[in-house]
């Protein structure tokens, strides 16, 4: 298929804002519904940011991307949706990155939400503009509007063949009333030019290939100072005595400043510490090396990974927060013919985006101008405003490209640091985090311990399912002392989809000793690992084929209503009526991936398959891994197959790339990912002791996307959860050894 590259937009990459003399369609996005209103052309100068499309008299089309680009391809997918409905010529499209502003609706680019939440409103925005341009042409030509149609940036009068460019119609269109959303005629699926196709080249592809990009690290302002910060090595430890005399002697170091200590809960507040201000990054880092600092204990020094693990295991046995309860698990287990029990452990993990956090701020005239690789510009704006006591309107957040996010850049602590430092210095300041900072002072994926038990009847029916978990909660980051999980339960624990008569899911208590955050797919990582591994253990116990047994476990076609089972299920913020837990769709991806991987065919000696399926972010992903064992006993993942049902597939090319990435991300955490704490300090520091998958580890990945009329689901995260269990299930099939603890590198098999 021919790939269309948008050449014209290269000129506009760094342009924020809109030109005057444009037809501006401002669209407010209260998440789903929206009410467009035309602004008079003069109103464009009265800048009121919102998600919009505008058309310039030079025939160019400006499309605002209000979500952050971190590799998921949203700067390509959003313009595709709008341009398709508008019938825009892709060459005329200018992509404009939206500033942080609540008028856009949610800009919080996490939770795999961008297309899921904005598909419909973006289509309506494009259709509104197209309809008004048709009406403008009709009025100019004195013909009925229904005789006019849009094609490639022009309106054409069907009977006469008359043609006018979008640009030539701007002046008239701007005077017309905006049609109501319900009167809009959206395009028929068969007429889509971009949606559902893979024919548009990445909007930023050329700039990336030529190094002409601006990430958070790359922002450069005149007279800018560079800052690195020595942060407390243990959460909330306080700054004691420090000696900066050697640091200040380093060439390029301008000043050394003590920052305020952090009070718990950490929220998105700066961690405090000692800031080194320098004329370049290297000098700042050297300055930090030369500092001598004493820290005053906070109490989190009690955190040691080995003893903590034992405490979590004990906490699983005392799990008294019941999160889902169906039937009577205790009774069913007691009366079962057999009981299968297993324990799973997944350690603390960190995001490690290739670009660590970085933000640049310029405080001037009571205003903060900020450039940052943030996933959530409004949260950055709000947090800076709150902590530095200014109006949010005086905080301008420019979103750069993100060199990866994975959830780390949803936390704007680093943005606040930059704002604080610029105010302190009265100058533009860039705060950059080194890799060591990123690993040692992160918002971590929680370490978790899980205990599962299943009751099995004489004829190998599973009659009871008990799942107890213990892990420190994200809640502790926001509320001091929180020690029981909350929304984490929604992510692969209580939504276990098997058809079992007696089910109980419960959580034990766990104190947090680091900032707990969220990492790509969050607790789906550990919970799907346990659930999908245990399903495989049940199949083995029954002497059944793992795929057939999985289908049997899922049971009849139905929509699961967890409210009937004393569970409060969040469903990723979506209505269950629109996005049900649909077991038919779950089984369908299992069958499809099995067919794709030729599950039934015997593998040559030394190779085996493992399967896992998981619904998350309202999408369904089944995964098969093929592993092989070398003579050395080392295991390698050779191939990964995915079948993905993410509802309407808007940009299949980027869906495929997200699954390819999920295979590698999942492989990294299965093979290598582990952080450990000693006396409250994270022991790892860089890629040598927190390694990740390299090209030599990478399997071939084959992706099947289900053609679907369902509303769009998430894509960025749902590929990750089934990967680890698919791999360990395959290793079991190959070697007969069951690995219930990650990462595998500790077992000496990778």
């Amino acid at each position, binding site marked *: 298929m021919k790939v269309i*590259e948008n050449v014209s937009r290269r000129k506009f990459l760094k342009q924020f804002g809109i030109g005057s003399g444009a037809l501006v369609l401002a669209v407010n996005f209260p998440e789903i519904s929206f009410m467009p209103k035309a602004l008079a052309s003069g109103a464009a100068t009265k800048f009121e940011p919102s998600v919009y499309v505008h058309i310039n008299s030079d025939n160019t089309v400006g499309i605002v991307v209000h979500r952050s680009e971190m*590799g998921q391809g949203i700067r390509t997918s959003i313009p595709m949706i709008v341009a398709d409905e508008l019938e825009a010529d892709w060459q005329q499209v200018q992509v404009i990155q939206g500033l942080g502003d609540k008028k856009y609706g949610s800009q919080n680019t996490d939770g795999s939400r961008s297309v899921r939440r904005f598909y419909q409103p973006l289509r309506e925005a494009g259709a509104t503009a197209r309809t008004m341009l048709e009406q403008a042409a009709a009025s100019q030509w004195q013909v009925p509007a229904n005789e006019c149609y849009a094609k490639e940036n022009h309106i054409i009068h069907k009977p006469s063949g008359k043609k006018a460019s979008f640009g030539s119609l701007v002046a008239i269109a701007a005077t017309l009333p905006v049609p109501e959303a319900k009167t809009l005629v959206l395009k028929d699926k068969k007429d889509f030019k971009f949606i559902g196709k893979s024919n548009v080249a990445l909007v930023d592809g050329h700039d990336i290939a030529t190094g002409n990009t601006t990430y958070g690290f790359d922002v450069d302002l005149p007279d800018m100072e560079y800052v690195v910060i020595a942060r407390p090595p243990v959460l909330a430890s306080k700054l004691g005595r420090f000696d900066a005399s050697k640091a200040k002697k380093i060439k390029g170091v301008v000043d050394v400043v003590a920052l305020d200590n952090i009070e718990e809960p950490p929220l998105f507040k700066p961690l405090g510490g000692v800031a080194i201000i320098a004329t370049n990054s290297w000098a700042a880092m050297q300055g930090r090396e030369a500092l001598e600092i004493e820290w005053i204990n906070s109490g989190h020094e009690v955190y040691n990974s080995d003893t903590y693990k034992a405490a979590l295991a004990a906490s699983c046995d005392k799990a008294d927060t019941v999160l889902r309860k169906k039937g009577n698990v205790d009774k069913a287990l007691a009366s079962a013919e057999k009981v299968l029990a297993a324990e799973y452990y997944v350690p603390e993990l960190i995001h490690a985006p290739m670009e660590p956090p970085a933000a640049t701020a310029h405080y001037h005239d009571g205003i903060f101008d900020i450039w940052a690789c943030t996933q959530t510009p409004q949260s950055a704006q709000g947090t800076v405003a709150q902590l530095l006591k200014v109006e949010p309107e005086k905080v301008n957040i420019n979103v750069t490209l993100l060199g*990866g996010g994975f959830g780390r850049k949803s936390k704007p602590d680093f943005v606040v640091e930059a704002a604080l430092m610029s105010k302190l210095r009265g100058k533009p300041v860039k705060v950059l985090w080194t890799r060591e900072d990123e690993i040692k002072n992160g918002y971590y994926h929680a370490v978790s311990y899980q205990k599962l038990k299943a009751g099995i009847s004489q004829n190998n029916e599973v009659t009871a399912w008990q799942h107890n978990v213990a892990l420190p909660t994200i809640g502790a980051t926001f509320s001091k002392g929180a020690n029981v999980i909350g929304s984490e339960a929604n992510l692969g624990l209580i939504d276990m989809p098997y058809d079992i008569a007696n089910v109980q899911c419960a959580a034990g208590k766990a104190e947090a000793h680091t900032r707990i955050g969220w990492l790509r797919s969050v607790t789906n990582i550990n919970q799907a690992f346990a659930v999908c591994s245990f399903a495989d253990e049940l199949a083995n116990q029954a002497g059944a084929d793992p795929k057939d047994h999985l289908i049997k476990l899922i049971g009849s076609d139905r929509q699961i209503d967890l409210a009937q089972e004393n569970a409060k299920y969040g469903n990723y913020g979506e209505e269950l009526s629109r996005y049900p837990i649909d077991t038919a769709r779950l089984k369908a991806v299992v069958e499809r991936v099995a067919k794709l991987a030729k599950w039934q065919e015997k593998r040559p000696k030394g190779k085996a398959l493992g399967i896992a399926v998981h619904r998350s972010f309202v999408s369904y992903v089944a995964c098969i891994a093929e592993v092989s064992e070398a003579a050395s006993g080392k295991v390698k993942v050779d191939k990964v197959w995915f079948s993905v049902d993410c509802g309407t597939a808007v940009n299949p090319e980027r869906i495929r790339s997200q699954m390819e990435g999920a295979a590698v991300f999942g492989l990294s955490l299965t093979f290598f990912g582990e952080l450990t704490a000693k006396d409250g300090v994270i022991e790892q520091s860089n890629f040598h002791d927190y390694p990740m998958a390299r*090209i030599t580890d990478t399997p071939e990945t084959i992706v099947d996307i289900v053609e679907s009329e369902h509303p769009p689901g998430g894509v960025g995260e749902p590929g990750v959860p089934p990967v680890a269990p698919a791999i360990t299930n395959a290793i079991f099939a190959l070697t007969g050894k069951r690995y219930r603890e990650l990462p595998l590198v500790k077992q000496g098999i990778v």
Partner: protein
Amino acid sequence: MITLNVNGKAHQYDDDENMPILWALRDILKYTGTKYGCGKGLCGACTVHLNGQPIRSCATPVSAVGDQKITTIEGLSEKGDHPVQQAWQALNVPQCGYCQSGQIMSAVALLENNPKPDDEQIDMAMSGNICRCGTYERIRKAIHLASDLAIEVKGGK
């Protein structure tokens, strides 16, 4: 004072000679296409060419470079049409894109030494470059494509 030769241009440099060339390029000379990822030569994001050979600029001080020829991503081609750059775009290799300058510089060096590498040779040559987004499989494919494109350009087919 040192004269740094970057992408065929001479730059006067009078900062710290112990500064890794990465930071000299980025902060002093403003070539920001070369990226920081680890500072320890572990991830390859900072890969540039020194006399045509790939080096980790984060672990190479200015003093070790002197006036030798440095090539960064910005100097790879005038119009962004080096066969490797073309292949990267044709296959939509990047996700976040941050590591890709380094990936591309490693790939170019590989193809200069070995115009027709197989998968294993690609894996060996590229194993020093981490991509957290996981674009490795497309990198492999793009190197094969770039190899074909380069051979076509040279009329070798």
